[in-house]
């Protein structure tokens, strides 16, 4: 921009500020996103980008969205966030755990910009956090897995041994064992959220151990492809992965960020936005169970859907006692449910899982 036009627009801007009430509606709310992966990953980032598109569809001209994809966590994230803030974005969604400290640093420098950080735990007046109760969906998957396995061995491909993933492993296992007391759980760590080659290796390792149902907390379709070769079954993760239906993909756990994104943007537009920690699940439509295919017997499907309804209505909590930790110590007494604090720092397996969590 030439200096002269810069001055002219600065003058125009000051006139606009004077006349703010009359013009405020015309200025679209600029919303920025930073993604940890490419929008085409077909999983985590893809679902967040669908949320961004839902915002555009809902609010039309009243908003303007941009995104920066494949931002490495760390120093680069801080710069990308600063550039989004400098470019005039007033609401910024940072959609990966590793963006946490950069978000806090940048938020301190831009007090009039609102930040939304996915899956983190640090907040400020202008930093809110949001997350989904994926473990609710895992309970449904676990029920199907427990009923469907013939070898009584189910496998779980973990990404990283962090609380969110451990919740999923425990929830799947608890519900698989509930319907099938013989079930055993094997866990393999991929140490990546998205790496088709490593995920395929992990799936192959599980299949070699006699696993015939694979759950995954990684985002590629590679484990489903491996399951297909071996005649095993699996579940879609983050997105529906319907290309593998009706089998090996017998159902899926879908992250739907749209309801939350639309709600928060609406709050910014009408001036009611406040920093808080949101942890929504099936009941709020943030965790969606993808269609359960005909590869699953009707009575199993019914059982799974009934559990889903119970969780959605709040009638049932997937972590309800009596539950012991893997080391045999007591965790939840009969009828007691896990607190959110307990869940968000979960670093132990429940009784019955024989593997150890890598430390």
């Amino acid at each position: 921009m030439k200096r002269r036009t810069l001055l002219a627009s600065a003058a125009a801007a000051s006139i606009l500020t004077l006349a703010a009430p009359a013009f405020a509606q015309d200025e679209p709310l600029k919303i920025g996103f930073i993604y940890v992966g490419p929008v085409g990953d077909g999983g985590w980032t893809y679902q967040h980008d669908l949320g961004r598109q839902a915002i555009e569809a809902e609010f039309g001209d009243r908003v303007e969205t941009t995104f920066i994809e494949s931002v490495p966590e760390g120093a680069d994230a801080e710069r990308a966030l600063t550039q989004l803030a400098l470019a005039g974005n007033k609401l910024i969604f940072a959609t990966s755990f590793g963006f946490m400290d950069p978000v806090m640093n940048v938020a301190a420098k831009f007090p009039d910009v609102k930040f939304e950080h996915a899956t983190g735990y640090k907040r400020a007046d202008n930093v809110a956090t949001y997350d989904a109760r994926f473990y609710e969906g895992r309970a449904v998957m676990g029920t199907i897995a427990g009923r469907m396995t013939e070898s009584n061995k189910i496998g779980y491909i973990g990404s990283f041994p962090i609380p969110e993933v451990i919740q999923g492993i425990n929830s799947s296992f608890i519900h698989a064992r509930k319907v099938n007391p013989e079930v055993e759980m094997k866990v393999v760590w991929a140490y990546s959220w998205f790496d088709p080659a490593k995920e395929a290796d992990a799936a192959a390792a599980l299949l070699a151990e006699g696993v015939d149902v694979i759950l995954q907390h990684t985002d590629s379709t590679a484990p489903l492809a491996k399951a297909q070769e071996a005649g095993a079954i699996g579940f879609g993760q983050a997105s529906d992965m319907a290309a593998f239906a009706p089998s090996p993909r017998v159902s899926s756990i879908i992250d739907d960020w749209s309801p939350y994104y639309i709600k928060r943007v609406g709050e910014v537009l009408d001036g009611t936005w406040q920093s808080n920690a949101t942890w929504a699940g099936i009941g709020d439509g943030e965790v969606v169970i993808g269609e359960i295919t005909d590869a699953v017997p009707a009575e199993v499907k019914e059982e799974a859907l009934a559990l889903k309804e119970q969780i959605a209505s709040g009638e049932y909590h997937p972590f309800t006692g009596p539950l012991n930790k893997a080391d045999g110590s007591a965790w939840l007494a009969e009828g007691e449910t896990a607190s959110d604090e307990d869940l968000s720092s979960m670093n132990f397996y429940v009784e019955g899982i024989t593997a150890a969590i890598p430390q």
Partner: protein
Amino acid sequence: MIQLVPRSEVSTLWQFLTPVLAVLATMVAGGLLFWVMGYDPVAAIKTIFWDPLFGMASSYSRPQLLVKAAPLILIASGLAIGFRAGIWNIGAEGQYIIGAICGAAVALAAYPSEGMWIFPAMVVAGAAGGWAWGMIPATLRNWFGASEILVSLMLVYVAQRVAAWMAFGPMKNPEGFGFPGSRNLQQYPSASNPELIAGTGTHWGVVAAAVAVLATWFLMSRHIRGFHIRTAGLAPRAARFAGVKPETLVAFCLGLSGALAGMAGLFEVAGPAGQITDKIGVGYGFTAIIVAFLGRLHPVGILLAGLLLALTYIGGELAQLMLNLPAATVQVFQGMMLFFLLGFDLLTRFKIQRRVVA
């Protein structure tokens, strides 16, 4: 048939011109690519190369160039010395990671005590860590004749596993609710590497990069070791007659480039990055190879090339933000630059001749 014939003399002028040509060719080829993808090529090139320097938010992005360029220059300065001697350290990324871990280890061990000694000790530990990681391929080459190219590259993957282990295990922040990653060193005054002058982006790593440029220039042009290195690269046999021990040279080059990469890692983890995570390596060690070659393995050239590569990073982000260009653009750009450079280089050293089939 087409044949490449070595030129009897390599023009000095072309030596300097090829990097410039490579950049121009990258702009043209990149522009074409954007045009095919349906973007305005002029706007895209301008956003990448011009706006970070003189655009609207340049008061922010100009200092960021230094932040981004410093590790590249620091690492490339070390690599270039080895490359001059024909010793190929491809594993600077691994040395960078290990340096970051060793430096951070000092800080985390000292936490929460404060003291003037902590940061200097971290720098020493970072350099030592990188040096040690570089000495593995050096030792294996000297003892068993193992290729330092392969060994140093493979050790990058080992280093990444070590970083993951540290982030999830021994270095995990005890107050981090079980989440991976160490304490944030930015919030630990004695160990942090902050901006020295607010708004300039200058942290200790930038200072170190400047010193490295000067020191390597001195080494290569004024010091007997520099003479040995150059001779070894140009005429290994002659160097041997001149009393240069190849083993010493291998250890010196890999150790020095490792130490510089390790320091770069330390400055990054104590400053811009802040904490040890499983993703502490973001590719500086590999990009620095491009920087070294683009800079003609010369300290001043490396300084300019480092800044240019930093520009493509920051401009690439800006292009994503402003024009919705895909993120892979930056990598395509950097790849093209190396490709064109090597291509033009070939033509300065060789000429193309049609071979007459008898």
